[in-house]
């Protein structure tokens, strides 16, 4: 389970890296074409927004696995290690509830995008593509936080024994 989630998270970050490079490239090409032959790329804003969905959300699972999300660790300095371990596990459980609830309630708006065939104004790109990228990041984030929760819980229980 752990290695599968790590591999999936790393894969998504690599996909996001391709999208990030594409975001750099489209800005450079757009500005270049606009300033040289006055012919900017049509729909650049919409393309950048689609790329942003991947860049901003696909790396969330790996950021969790790398413990990069900001937590305030002041309490660790004043409570015994055992208590700190349990608090870490409870904090991760709260994060798990948050991403779980978020993913669940993101489904209906995504279904609405499909049902009403919502598209962007210029390029007429289906909004469900963007929603799909965001949901993929959040869905794998659930697995990543679950893995961390199991790790934190085992550590807390291990120290308790």
């Amino acid at each position: 389970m752990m290695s599968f989630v790590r591999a999936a998270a790393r894969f998504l970050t690599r996909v996001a890296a391709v999208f990030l490079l594409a975001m750099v490239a489209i800005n450079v090409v757009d500005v270049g074409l606009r300033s040289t032959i006055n012919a900017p790329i049509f729909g650049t804003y919409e393309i950048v927004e689609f790329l942003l969905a991947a860049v901003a959300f696909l790396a969330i699972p790996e950021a969790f696995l790398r413990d990069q999300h900001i937590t305030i660790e002041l309490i660790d300095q004043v409570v015994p290690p055992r208590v700190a371990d349990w608090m870490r596990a409870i904090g991760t459980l709260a994060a798990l509830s948050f991403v779980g609830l978020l993913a669940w309630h993101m489904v209906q708006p995504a279904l609405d995008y499909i049902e009403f065939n919502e598209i962007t104004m210029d390029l007429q790109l289906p909004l469900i593509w963007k929603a799909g990228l965001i949901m993929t990041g959040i869905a794998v984030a659930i697995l990543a936080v679950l893995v961390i929760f199991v790790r934190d819980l085992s550590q807390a229980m291990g120290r308790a024994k």
Partner: protein
Amino acid sequence: MTEQMIGALGILALVSLTLLRVPLGAAMGLVGLVGYAAIDGWDRAFIVFGTTPYSLTHYSFSVLPLFILMGTVATRSNMSQELFVAANAIFAGKRGALPMATIGACAGFSAISGSSLATAATFTSIAVPEMRRYGYDERLATGAVAAGGTLGILIPPSVIMVIYALAAEESVPMLFAAGMIPGLILAGLFLVVVWVIVRLHPEWAPPVGDKMPWGERVRAVAAMWKLVLLFGLAVGGIYTGWFSPTEAAGIAAFAAIVLATATRQLNLRGLYDCLMETLWTTAMLMFIIVGAWIFAYFVVQTRLPSGLIDLIKVFDLSPWAVIMMILVFYIILGCVLDAVAIILVTVPVFLPVVVSMGYDSVWYGILMVVVVEIGLITPPVGLNIFVMRAQLPDIALTTLFRGIAPFLVADAVLIALLLAFPQIALWLPGILFS
């Protein structure tokens, strides 16, 4: 229970959850959801909750990963070392030359990095060993790096300013322009602090070294051309009207990659690492922003800002007194929360209050950045200090905090100047956008 009481309870719950180690983004999101539901019912709360992530892929947010990428590439390539050599050439022959050079180099690096942590981490590895080699006192050496690092978020481009701009719906170019003069003043004040320290404690700095020949100085300063080019693209391009902030960030990130590759400071592996680092940072910020946006919707529902405004009227507080109270609150908050969190949590509550009293939201943004900077170098969550400590395990944390103490006077002076003369922040944007 009134909406404003629910709002106050929500803020209390948020502080409690973050102190209990719940990740900040999750804490803000959960409190925002429950609070919103308490006011407007679960059905509406879940709609806001579920649609928020989709609303955050707005074009204006794309400036964040692109500026972060530019800063990451600049940090990984040798630009910081060249800057240190150039700044050293400028100050050579003066007592306290190396700490002054460190501050100068940090100010220069801030113009391409956008991050305090990156600036402090970079110059800890470059400047501190050099200062120790020449016999500088550890307090002066580390204090100069920690203080210099904070310039990273004040001198544009600055990731924190972009986050403030997004949260406050303010213009990124206006904020960048507003940060320029206060950033330079703060760098100047830090230099004055070094000058005073070496006069009060001559034993903290070695005797004056040889002066550098002018030809050598000019060559060293000329080696800063990469920095000038990147800053010109990232910030200059915005004000000449060539690019939007997102385009400027994209072009500058591209130029940083090309420059670093052409000068053999970046290979494919290095580029891969830069991309990964950028994505993790962006994801971490985005996760907090999702939570912060949900929390902000809740704050709007509570009408907490209008309650605060009413309270100010009841007690007949002057705008000056309110700003002082907010500043004290921020300094206390800086002891428990980091800069991103402070801005995202407090902007929805305080900005409407401050604006209602006639203050400018751009000026307030700069004041906030200066105040949250202090939190980066003061205990217990001074992140700059902890980043330095990780690289200098043989220096006690107390030495690091003692080293930074004199530089806090410079921050206090800048805050006083900004309060007394708001034009320090507002003059340049006024000229550029008139």
